[in-house]
């Protein structure tokens, strides 16, 4: 069975500082990896995805993530955060189960950007 681990439930960081949100997954087969962002009182929005090819993927709002197969990780990074990045971030893994794609979400990391 697949699982997704986001070790940090909350990450405080000062504005304009870099940030890394960690995500590790466990799966014995190839997976697709996603990061979603949930702003306060809103639904989830796709931030970026890894499907295949280059292991460094770039998303919206200056975020990027690197797929590391040997470490089964897909950490999210941003070199300089802004107040508007304050939100909850979810890592997700998709794999094919019984002919359809099954999505598993991590427990989320709340990013708090401090002015």
């Amino acid at each position: 069975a697949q699982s997704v681990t986001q070790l940090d439930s909350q990450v405080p960081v000062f504005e304009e500082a870099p940030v890394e949100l960690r995500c590790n997954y466990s799966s014995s087969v190839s997976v697709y990896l996603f990061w979603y962002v949930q702003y306060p009182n809103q639904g989830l929005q796709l931030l970026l995805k890894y499907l295949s090819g280059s292991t460094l993927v770039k998303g919206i709002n200056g975020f990027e993530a690197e797929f590391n197969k040997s470490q089964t990780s897909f950490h999210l990074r941003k070199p300089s955060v802004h107040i508007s990045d304050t939100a909850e971030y979810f890592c997700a893994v998709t794999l094919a189960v019984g002919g359809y794609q099954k999505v598993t979400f991590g427990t989320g990391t709340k990013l708090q950007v401090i002015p």
Partner: protein
Amino acid sequence: SAVISQKPSRDICQRGTSLTIQCQVDSQVTMMFWYRQQPGQSLTLIATANQGSEATYESGFVIDKFPISRPNLTFSTLTVSNMSPEDSSIYLCSVEEGPYNEQFFGPGTRLTVL
């Protein structure tokens, strides 16, 4: 990408009552999904709703408690029946698009049960 709306956006309900949540998509989709996001927790899939067939429920969720309708390719409802405070949660609907089944989410319905 699909644009998804949900009604109501939030509600406060009494124990023992039921609430029906509506999900509208601006394009025709085969599968729609209902998730629950309890306070401080991640998303948990409740069920998958295909148009023209019974919804498929995940372990721990049953039709009597969470009946789902899917009358056409752009609309679905989820009812939370006989509510208790433990049902207080955000309920999200989503759809899949593209060859890699990216999920697109509605804004969610924030339910509080007293």
